[in-house]
């Protein structure tokens, strides 16, 4: 059984990254389990890197944006399906 799907939004505009740095692995792969507070990506704006965190535990079902896409504020980044 799958629980409720929750979308993770970017609070700020900027460039989206799934990796902590270019030579590292992605924070989370699609299908991975995440805990509340886990970092799933970064948004870069004004030379700051803002960590996007999972707001609830569950499985990160899907990313809705690609690496290095420029996001608008409020744009949907990923879907997390809650554990049931």
């Amino acid at each position, binding site marked *: 059984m799958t629980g409720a799907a929750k979308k993770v*939004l970017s*609070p*700020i*505009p*900027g*460039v989206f990254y799934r990796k902590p740095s270019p030579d590292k692995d992605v924070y989370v792969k699609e299908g991975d389990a995440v805990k509340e507070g886990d970092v799933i990506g970064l948004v*870069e*704006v*004004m*030379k*700051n890197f*803002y960590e996007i965190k999972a707001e609830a535990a569950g499985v990160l079902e899907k990313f809705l944006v690609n690496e290095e896409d*420029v*996001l*608008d*504020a*409020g744009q949907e980044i990923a879907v997390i399906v809650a554990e049931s």
Partner: protein
Amino acid sequence: MIKVMSPGLQTTVQDNGRIGYYEVGMPPSGAMDKYSLTVGNLLVGNDENAAALEITYMGPVLQFQEDAIIALTGGEIPPKINGQPVPMWETLSVKAGDELSFDFVKQGARVYLAVAGGIDVPLIMGSRSTYTLCGIGGLEGRPLEQGDELNIGNQSKHQVPVGTRVQSEFIPSFSKVNEIRVIVGLCSYRLTEESKQRFFSIDWTVTTEANRVGYRFKGERLNFVEREQPFGAGSNPSNVVDLGYPIGSIQVPDGVEPIALLNDAVTGGGYATVGTIISTDLDKMAQIKTNEKVRFVAVDIEEALQARKENKQKIEKLKQQLFQL
């Protein structure tokens, strides 16, 4: 006292700026959107130059340790007190223990939090504005951090009744596509005629490099007129002999991406400045986000001065309305 529970993305103390030191290389800093700062200060009865918090893209969480009168102006980052939505552009009362937080940004980029009495930080060269690149002004010369405590000052001039509201004609509207008025020059002669025309006929997209120092735009490459390198100028065609950069001036290093220099920018250098944003439209520029579009529109100095005059008259009219209440 106001306690910073969470600082937001970049929250700084700003007033009208550190005016009068430009020739020694000190930019003014100060609120990016001066109109919104002024209206915020009016709504709480402050001296117009009182320091407020400038909040960018993402709001802080602030806990008031004492009763206070506040107002929030600028772009739309919906504010909440103890989790309940509260209006912007209105005089609000908060009680000791209340917590101010914000939803995601809806429109615009910067919100001003004015507090009756002003934010009390030391005056540095006549201003309380934060200039982060030099680490001066504001709170220890830096953006707010978790755990900071801000004192409330005594720059209150009037008592403004709670619930006083700015009428809609005084509230700016925001768009994802913006016209920004520019005076052509000082070094526009360096661009080819075709590039000069292109500069004013395409939509430029604001990149992620857009902050208090300047905004960088993506669009298309601009070309410079061929010339023999003058003595004292750099070798790139976009270089000229060093000159002062007006605030709002636009340069195009190597012709690749135009940069509009803003409140915290370098005061001079060796790039050709092809135009300067008129002072009135700097407020509008301050509310444009990464990924939004700008179309530059050429105006002459008379039109720029007229816009400035109308902006001043608008503030005078607002003062009359507010203080008749």
